Structure formats: structure tokens, C-alpha cells
């Protein structure tokens, strides 16, 4: 099955009307990622190719902006390993980048953080635990995915520590 531009517009409207930040849709041959305030991508995994304007695949913060439909071929390159000190999850739980669905993320790449800056939330059975940077510097990468299970000790973000 392939998604037409009209389909994507429809899905976007639904996501926008919902309380969700992100939608991952996988069908045979197509993988669609919709992210509120971010980029959207569809991965052609078979013969299906969606013609679309190519935009940078990197999700760049675009606060308070409706989801932009961007269908891009995802680069096959290996994941970028960012420099910086890892900030690890202090516990196993579900990681959230923002204080509530739809809100701006606590930190984005490039943000300056202090040791006590909240960088995310780890939820354990409805109990929300704030996670702080623990170091002072600049965020070089947000590693953990919003809404994903993170293990104890798993890297959440990376920070280039200020001298």
C-alpha cells in the first residue's frame, strides 16, 4: 500500500487534533513518522517511492508550528554518534522529552544546560520522575526517543561539558 499526499494531509489533520506528539505508521513498503513541531518522514522500504520535496531529515525544533508534511528518503548512513558526556537514565521507565503532550521539549540540541536543568521525565507506573542534566554545558544530542522505554543507565542526551 502507498500513501498519497491526500492521505498524509488527512493523517496530519488527525494527529494535529489529537493529544499525541508523534505518530509512527508502518505499512508494507512505507514507514511514516509524524512529529508535532518536527519533521515527518516516510521511508520507502520496498519499491514504493513517494515523491516529495526533500528537506533536511534532522528534526529541528520548530515550536508552536503545525506539523509540516515532509516526506524524505531516510539516509542509510549509520547513526550519528554525537560527542559529549552522556546523561544517563537514573531508572528504568518511559522517557518523556516534554512536561506534557504537545508542550515544548525540555531541551533541544544546542540548548545550554546547568547541572539542575530538567532534561526529561522518566515515568514508572504513572509516577513522574524528573531527570536533571547533572552537568553544565551544551546539549549535543537527544538520544532517547520520546515515549520509549529507557533502561537504567541508558543514555538520554549528550552534553558538551563547559570548561
Amino acid at each position, binding site marked *: 500500500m502507498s500513501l498519497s499526499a491526500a492521505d498524509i494531509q488527512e493523517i496530519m489533520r488527525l494527529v494535529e487534533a489529537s493529544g499525541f506528539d508523534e505518530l509512527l505508521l508502518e505499512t508494507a513498503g512505507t514507514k511514516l513518522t509524524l512529529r508535532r513541531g518536527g519533521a515527518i518522514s516516510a521511508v520507502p522500504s520496498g519499491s514504493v517511492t513517494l515523491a516529495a520535496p526533500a528537506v533536511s531529515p534532522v528534526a529541528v525544533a520548530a515550536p508552536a508550528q503545525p506539523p509540516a508534511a515532509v516526506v524524505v528518503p531516510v539516509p542509510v548512513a549509520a547513526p550519528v554518534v554525537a560527542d559529549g558526556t552522556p546523561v544517563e537514565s537514573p*531508572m*528504568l*521507565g*518511559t522517557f518523556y522529552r516534554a512536561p506534557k503532550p504537545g508542550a515544548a521539549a525540555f531541551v533541544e540540541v544546542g540548548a545550554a544546560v546547568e547541572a539542575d536543568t530538567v532534561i526529561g521525565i522518566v*515515568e*514508572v*507506573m504513572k*509516577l513522574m520522575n524528573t531527570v536533571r542534566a547533572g552537568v553544565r554545558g551544551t546539549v549535543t544530542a537527544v538520544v532517547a526517543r520520546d515515549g520509549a*522505554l529507557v*533502561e*537504567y*543507565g*541508558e543514555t538520554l542526551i549528550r552534553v558538551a561539558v563547559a570548561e
Partner: protein
Amino acid sequence: MAIRRVFIANRGEIAARIIRSCKHLGIETVLAVSAADRNSLPARLADRAVCVGPARSSDSYLLVNTLVHAALSTGCDAVHPGYGFLSERAPFARACEQAGLVFIGPTPEQIEAVGDKLRARSEAIAADVPVVPGATVDSVQDALEAATRIGTPLLVKAVGGGGGRGMKRVDVLDDVASAIELASAEAAAAFGDARVYLERYVSRGRHVELQVLGDGQGRVIHLGERDCSVQRRYQKLIEETPAVGLSAPLLAQLREAGVRFAQRLHYRGAGTVEFLVDTERDCFYFLEMNSRIQVEHPVTEAVTGVDLIAEQIAIAAGEGLRLQQSDVQITGHAIECRINAEDPARDFAPSPGRVRRAAWPVAANIRVDTHIDDGAMVPPFYDSLMGKVIAYGADRAAAVAALQQALAVTYIEGVATNISFHQRVLADAEFQQGGIDTGYVARLMASG
């Protein structure tokens, strides 16, 4: 409901053991690991391992909400608690149930009923199962009267204790009051429960326990008894089945009593009813029930051919009891040695560290349950059990001989082990004769 993916909230050899049965049954496994166990053998054997916290078990293997969250987030439909850790904590079983996870074990109510020793004792009395003469302690005056009635020697035991912890022996009545005070204070500190009770002390007793399976609807079968009298400071070291040297009527009564106790609770899953056999009076008393799989379950599996973990899973999945009592045939004899990382030369002090090389015995009549391979760590945070060597023979002498041969080629380098202790016991005439009591190890060690 069919169980497709099991979350294992445990570590060590029992984690590896549960994974083995799950693989055989085509069930996927997700293992909780602490930071100290990330590279353990079970972590590699499981389909997935998730790190739930740092090494200390209070921050990892004992975190109820974290484990339930991990089980749900990894798409598991059931939780196997193993033994120790949260296996006999009703709040964990309840949290699993409330989250929609099948708890592979008894109900929270059953765990509570047998976890509190005083309640378990009254359940035993109600089920017409003999208990050790004893009394609860409400006041010092009551206690003195009760102690006079029970007679010395007697034991002061913590209600919240277990595994031999929280006990004091009293030999003269004058010491009762001070022993209660001391035991109560210790119990409050160790278990958060200051309640203590008195019990007759049996000077020559054997620890004989009955393996049971219940369907949760009131039907219970047993899979024979295990003799676990080779104990050092109440810690079991060698277990065997069948128990030898017990009169046929006593054994029959003990089996009936164990089944009756579990029936009264409408017990669900695998459990063990523990008895103290008073060899001088030729009778037995109910001690407690363990509402989980036991460390020593393999000896029962060896003589019955039943996979107890598989039966636990089947019962949890709602299949009920797949066996009738008449299906359980006990053939031959099995003995297990617990190989611990502890040094007999240094009063069995724990010997954690890295195992450089581990060579376990391989033979047709030998089974080894272990999580220790070359390079494995024995972390200082947990118990020192490295593995269990189980020998099967047509009779007891054959099992002893097979176990001796197996231990002779068991080689662990890097940490001290108690293998030499086991070899000493297996070669000892009194042990070989069979039917030793729980004071045996202390006498053996005192003899030099």
C-alpha cells in the same frame, strides 16, 4: 490465556532455569537485570534483558513498580518471580494482577496466608496438620506460662523471619524473658516486625518437605518429599529425594498432611510444605509453606520426570493440573549439592569475585543448573549460589557415587567454593547410611 512472553524478575541460576523451560515451550523471555548482571549468562540466554537498576537489589530486583513497568513496556503477558526477591511478596503479585499481568505463582491472598508464620500455623491447625507445640507471645507473663507448658529447650522465633534468621534458643526458663526481649528488638530491626512466638525445640529433627501443585480450585497433588537435613546454620546445602529411613505410616501421613494444608488454601501453582520430623518421638510438625519454586526442585524433577517450571506456567495459564496423583511415579533417587562461592576454610565466608574458569560435570545421570561460565562474576550483592549439581541413580548409593564422581571433575577457578565440604559429606559414613538430622553438619564441622 496462552502465555507468549514471560518477564523474569530474578537472576542467577533460577533465571537460567526458567529460560530453559520457556525456550522448550516456545515462550519468549525478557529478563530483568541489575547493572551488575548485565553480562550474566541468563542475560545472554534471554530473548531480551532490560536493566532495571543498580546492583543493590533494593534498587533493582526489589522494585515492584519498576519491574511491572518493565514487564508491560516489553510486551510481556506474565511474570515469573523465581525464588527469593519478590517471589513471596503479596504486593508484587497484586501489582502484577492489577496491571493485567499473569503472576506465575499463587494468589496474593495465598502468599499472605503462608507468609505470616502465625497465620500459617493457625491454617495448619485448622487443616488438622500437626504443628510444633508453641505459643504466641502477647505479654511476658503469658510467655512464661506458655514456656513452662511447652518445656525447654525451646525457640523464640520472629514472626517475620525465615530461613533460620531471627531465632533464639532458650535452655532454661529463667532466660525466656530476656531472650524474648532480645529477639523482639532484633526482629523489629531486621524484618520491621517485632512480633515473636515460642516453639518446642526438637533436639533431633529432620527437615522433610513436600512438593505440591495446586490448580487454585481446591485440587492438589504432591510430587513426593525432599529431605533437606544437611544444613549449616539453617541454610540447606544438600537435598535429596526420597527421604530414607522414615516409617511408611509417617511418610504417608506427612504427604496427606501437606496436601491437606494446600487444599485448605485452594493453593494455586507450585509450593512446598515444610515439616520437621521429630525422630525421637517418631512424629512430624508443620514448619511453613514456601509459596514459590524451591532451589532444590530439580531432585523432584529427576525422580518424577515432571518439569515443575512448565507446570507452574501451565497452571498460571489456566490449564489447571495436567497430572493426576496416580500419574506421579517416583523412580530412583536424586541428590543435589549447592555449590556456593564460600570458603569452608574461613568459616564459609562469602567469596565473591570473577570466575576465571568454570568446568561443570557432564554425564548422563548428572544435571547442572548454573549461571556461571568462564569469566562470570559472582557479585557481592546477592547470595553466593553458583550452581547446583544434581545426580540421579537407581538407588541412593548409586546417586551418591555419581555425585562424588561429578564433583571430582567440577572445577571452579577464581573464587573459593564449598565443593570440598560436599565431598567430605558425601564420603562420610553417617551421611552414606542416610537419615541424618539437622544437627549433623555442626557435629561434622566440630569433629575437625
